[in-house]
C-alpha cells in the first residue's frame, strides 16, 4: 500500500506540465531539506562512525576519525549469530504473518464486499492493536505465555511441551511476538489489493473447469502479488531490526538476542559507537540487497 502509493503518478497525464517550477521548488524545499539533514546526513555519520578507532588516551566512548576496517571484521566475528538470527526470525515471522493474514484479508476484501459496514468494522479491528502501546501488547503476551499461564499449562497437559520447558525467553516466543506485532502491516496491503480483485477472472477460470485450488494458485495469487510484496516488505524490514520482542525483559532470552539488541547495547550501554554503527550499516545493506532482489524477482515495478 505504502509502496504502491509512490508509483504511477508519472504515468498519469500531467495536469500542469512544466508550469511554474519555482512554486514546485518552494513547496519541496523545506521537506526535502529536512530529510537531507535528518535522514541522509545521519546515514553518512553512521558510515563515518563505523570506521572510527578508539582515541589513544581517551575515556570509554571517545573515538577519533580513522579508516578502521577492523570494526566490521570484529562485529561480524563477535555477532554473526545475532545477524543470522535476525534474518531467520524476520523471515519466519513474515511467512507466518502471510499465512495468518491472507485468509483474513481475503474474507474482508472479497467475501465481505456485500456488507460495507462489516468490512469497515473488521478493518478497524485489524488496526486496533495500533491504538494500544506496542510495548504493553508485547508484555501482555509475556504474561499470557509465562510458565503459570493457561497456554503453557494446557500445552504441557497434552504433552506438546516438555514438563520443564518454557515458552518465554525462547526463539519461539520471539518469533510469535514479531508475527503478532506485524500482522496489521501484512493484512492491510493484502486487503487493499484483494478488495480491488476483479471476481470475473475467477469466474472465467472456473468456467474453464479449473479446480478451485487451481483458480486460487493460478489466478488469485498472481493478481494479489502487489499486496503480497508490499505486505512482506512492511513486515520483514521492521521485524529484522526490532529489538523489543527479543529483549530479555520482554519475550526474549540469552539465546534469542537479535541484531537490534546488540546495536542498542553497544550504542547506549557499552558506548561502543563504531561497533553499533558498523552493525547498523550491515543491517541496512543486507536489507537493501534483499529488497532489491526480491522486488526484481517478484516482478513488480511499483516500489518506486
Amino acid at each position, binding site marked *: 500500500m505504502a509502496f504502491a502509493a509512490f508509483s504511477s503518478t508519472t504515468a498519469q497525464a500531467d495536469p500542469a506540465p512544466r508550469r511554474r517550477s519555482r512554486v*514546485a521548488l518552494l513547496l519541496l524545499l523545506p521537506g526535502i531539506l529536512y530529510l537531507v539533514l535528518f535522514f541522509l546526513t545521519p546515514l553518512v*555519520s553512521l558510515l563515518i562512525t563505523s570506521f572510527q578507532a578508539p582515541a589513544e588516551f581517551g575515556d570509554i566512548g571517545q573515538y577519533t576519525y580513522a579508516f578502521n576496517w577492523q570494526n566490521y571484521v570484529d562485529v561480524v566475528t563477535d555477532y554473526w549469530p545475532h545477524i543470522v538470527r535476525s534474518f531467520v526470525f524476520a523471515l519466519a515471522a513474515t511467512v507466518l504473518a502471510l499465512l495468518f493474514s491472507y485468509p*483474513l484479508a481475503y474474507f474482508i476484501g472479497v467475501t465481505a464486499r456485500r456488507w460495507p459496514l462489516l468490512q469497515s468494522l473488521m478493518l478497524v*479491528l485489524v*488496526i486496533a492493536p495500533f491504538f494500544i502501546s506496542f510495548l*504493553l501488547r508485547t*508484555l501482555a503476551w509475556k504474561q499470557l505465555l509465562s510458565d503459570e499461564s493457561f497456554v503453557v499449562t494446557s500445552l504441557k497437559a497434552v504433552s506438546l511441551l516438555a514438563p520443564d520447558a518454557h515458552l518465554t525467553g525462547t526463539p519461539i516466543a520471539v518469533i510469535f511476538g514479531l508475527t503478532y506485532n506485524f500482522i496489521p502491516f501484512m493484512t492491510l496491503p493484502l486487503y487493499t489489493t484483494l478488495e480491488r480483485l476483479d471476481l470475473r477472472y475467477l469466474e472465467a477460470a472456473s468456467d474453464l473447469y479449473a479446480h478451485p485450488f487451481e483458480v486460487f494458485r493460478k489466478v488469485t495469487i498472481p493478481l494479489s502479488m502487489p499486496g503480497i510484496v508490499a505486505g512482506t516488505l512492511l513486515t520483514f524490514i521492521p521485524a529484522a531490526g526490532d529489538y523489543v520482542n527479543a529483549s530479555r525483559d520482554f519475550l526474549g532470552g540469552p539465546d534469542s538476542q537479535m541484531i537490534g539488541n546488540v546495536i542498542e547495547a553497544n550504542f547506549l550501554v557499552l558506548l561502543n559507537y563504531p561497533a553499533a554503527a558498523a552493525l547498523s550499516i550491515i543491517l541496512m545493506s543486507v536489507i537493501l540487497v534483499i529488497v532489491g532482489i526480491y522486488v526484481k524477482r517478484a516482478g513488480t515495478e511499483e516500489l518506486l
Partner: protein
Amino acid sequence: MKISLGRWLLPVYSALALLFLMVPIAYTFVFSFNDSLKSNITWRGFTFDKWLNVCAVQNGAVCEAFGNSLVIGSVATVLATVMGTMIAIAIVRYRFRFRSATSLLLFLPMATPEVVLGAGLAAQFLSLGVAKDMTTIILAHTMFCISFVVVTVKARVASLDPALEEAGRDLYGSSTQVFLRVTLPLLVPGILAAALLSFALSFDDFIITNFNSGAVTTFPKYIYISAARGIPAEANVIASAVFIFALVVVVTAQVSSAARAKRLAREG
C-alpha cells in the same frame, strides 16, 4: 455437508483471527482494574482506584511521560504534516527535475529499520555535540513521519477533480484564492488522516526515541524502563484510555463518512 463446511470455514477463521488480535488488548484493559501493588502481574482483585488516581503512582512519573509523549506527538505532527503536504502537492501537480531522486528520498526512510534511523541520528547528534532532550526527539519523529504524510496526502491530491479548481479560476479567483478556498478545503480529509497517522506513529514510537531521548522519558520509554521491575497498573489505565479514545475517533470518522456518502448518493 462438505459445501456448508467450506462456506463457514473462512468466516469462522476470520472471526477467530480478529479475536486473537484482540487478546493482548483485552489483557491490558482487564489488568488496568487490578488492585496491584508494585508490579501488575498477578490478579489481586478488582478496583477503580487506578483509573481515578492515575497520577498518584511514583510521584506522577507515568503522567509526566504521557504528557511528554503528547507534546512531542503534537509538535512533530504539525511539522511533518505541513512539510509532507507541501511535498505531496508538488509531486502530483508539478513537473520538476530530480523527480525520481525525490521519490527515492521519500521512500528510503520507510524502508530503513528504525534501529538504523535511531542510531544514525544519535551518531549525528553525538558528532555535532548536540545534547539529547525533547527537541532531538521531536526532530527525529518529524523525520520519520514526513514520508507517511506524503503517501497519505498524495492519494487525496491525485483524486481531486481538476474541474473544481478550473471552475474557481473561471470565476476570476486568483491562484491564491483558488488554493485557499477550493484546493485546501478539498484536501482536508487527507491532511487530517495524515496528521492522525503521524501522531499515532510518534506516540507509539519507542526504538528511535530510545536512541535520541537522553534523560527525557516518553510513555513507551517509561514502559520499557519499568518492564524489568514491574509496570504499575496506571500505565495500563493510560494505554486503555488512549485505546478507547482512538477507537471512538476512528469509528466516528467511519460512520460520518458513510453517512456523507449516503447523503451525496441521495442528493445525486
